């Protein structure tokens, strides 16, 4: 299976005179977890926002699930947008709603879905994201950073998307929490048949869950490939990134790529 669910071709994004991407190409294949890495400010978040249509590219083409979001009519665009889920860096939960209501929000778009079913589904997603039952009634402000991320993930999963976009899902989590989150992503990918676009700085996450890695530098995708491929590239930044002390530590401790069949509750 190597159908591309996301295809970016010749992407150029600019803010005023500041060019963030210049002729960037990137593919996300169906069923894979693609890790996107790059230094701070290389435009990883901007790339994610461009793919999901929050930013307009200056030039180039973005095709998601075979459709170009720029050219779609508003209803078709809405229908396309429901086929992906986005988890923003800090969860981006609606602060006036509790966790369950946050997850219910996208479900409200479904006609003929009764309130009880909606509630049951939302609670299922909350549980799938690894939150305990009592988190349902909590307000976002009462959650820890990791719980907010899980709640954001639950909301992104509400409509069973085909593509999941994650912006630094493990940033700011403790190693155990980050580890659990990595496993959760792999598990969900396997169970829900997701394709995952994962922006991260976390080398452990790259090791633990990514099938392929794309390195963003010099305004384009410098290289894509597996972890093993990355280790062979001798571009200075890429070399530094994958051979630095942290990278070595991550390699040697080697959280296994094969996720143990977790009994995540």
């Amino acid at each position, binding site marked *: 299976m190597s159908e591309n669910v996301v295809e970016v071709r010749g992407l150029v994004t600019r803010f005023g005179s500041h060019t963030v991407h210049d002729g960037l190409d990137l593919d996300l294949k169906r069923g894979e977890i693609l890790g996107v890495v790059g230094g701070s400010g290389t435009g990883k978040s901007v790339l994610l926002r461009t793919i999901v249509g929050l930013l307009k590219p200056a030039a180039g083409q973005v095709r998601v699930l075979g459709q170009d979001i720029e050219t779609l009519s508003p*209803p078709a665009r*809405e*229908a396309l947008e429901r086929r992906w889920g986005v988890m923003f860096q800090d969860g981006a939960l609606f*602060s*006036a709603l509790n966790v369950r209501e946050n997850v219910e929000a996208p*479900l409200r*778009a*479904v*006609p*003929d*879905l009764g309130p009880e*079913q909606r509630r*049951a*589904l939302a*609670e*299922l*997603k*909350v*549980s*799938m994201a690894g939150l305990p*039952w*009592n988190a349902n009634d909590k*307000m*976002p*402000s009462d959650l820890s950073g990791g719980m907010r991320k899980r709640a954001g993930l639950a909301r992104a*999963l509400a*409509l*069973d998307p085909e593509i999941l976009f994650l912006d630094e899902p493990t940033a700011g989590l403790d190693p155990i929490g980050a580890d659990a989150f990595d496993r959760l992503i792999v*598990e969900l990918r*396997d*169970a*829900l*048949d997701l394709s995952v676009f994962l922006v991260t700085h976390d080398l452990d996450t790259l090791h633990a869950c990514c099938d392929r890695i794309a390195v963003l530098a010099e305004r384009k995708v410098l290289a894509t490939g597996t972890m093993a491929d990355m280790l062979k590239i001798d571009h200075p930044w890429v070399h530094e990134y994958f051979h630095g002390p942290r990278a070595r530590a991550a390699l040697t401790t080697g959280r296994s790529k094969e996720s143990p069949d977790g*009994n*995540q*509750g």
Partner: protein
Amino acid sequence: MTSSSLPSEHRLTGTVSAGVASLSGDFSVWTLARAKQLIGDARQIDLAGLTRFDTAAALLLLSLQDQGVTLQGLAPTHERLLEAVRKSVPTPDPAKPVLRGLRALLDNTGRRVVRALRFLTELAEYLGRFLAALARSIRHPSEFPLIPLVHHCQETGLRAVPIVALMSFLIGVVLAFQGAVQLHEFGAEVFVVDLISISIIRELGVLLTAIIVAGRTASALTASIGSMKMREEIDAMRTLGIDPDMRLVLPRILALLITLPILTVIANAAGLLGGAIMSWVELGISPSMFRYRMIAETDVDNVIAGLSKAPVFALIIGVIGCHAGMKVGKDAESLGAQTSTAVVNAIFLVIIADALFSIFFAEVGI
């Protein structure tokens, strides 16, 4: 989309024969209602023809399985999803028993009373913290936050002068006008001077000033302290050995204590001016006549009674504002909520205190 027409790609078809419902197409959250309809009360479901199958559908199938329905023909990937959903179906925590009737009423009332009492004790605590900070700055004058104090005096005092003066002036005008109309009936126009001077000096000047200051300053106090609380600046201060009571609470409340009496004097003057002008225009009571009657008839006790309330009101406003600011949580929501409750509480308590003052003065005969 809010219309009930489904996007064309969500199509589920099915047939029922001999108790077996066969579904094909898109079995997902979008077609859940239709699926239920198609399945009806079939005891067996054949799912071989599905093109799409999601967690909502899996959840429905699980509940049907619990009712003894059997599934067949599920593709391996769909089977996997079904198992994943089965594993993560949440088990609700045991619900707390719900009280009803009289017990619920008692329970509620009790909670509210306790909450109100706790609110009052917390206010007392903040008053105590302010006094302690004040005492400490007297013992160690070098720690006194002079610059913040001046800044807050400007904010709560100087900046409030125009609105306080204008409003009080207008109240003077209104009093003179209304008094004139009523007193004219008895041919006792000249008593309008007593009416204006006593009511403004004794009651209205200080009360209206306090209400305006409560609206302006209590909200500002809550917002400024609350936003610092929200960004954990207060915790940072504590860890750096800076006492928030000294730096934040003391200058703010002290500024109110200093400026509210001054604002009251200004309000009194503006109110009397408004009253005097209106009496002159409307009743022909000349300014010198007004002054003569005012001095002759209005006891200095009235001034004392009026001004003595100002520091109390200042404390109420300041303590409530600071307390609400410290109560702000980590979200912007609670900042807004605390700000508005601070204003409401401050005005409410100011009026209650005013009523208590009236009773007190009546009892002691001032």
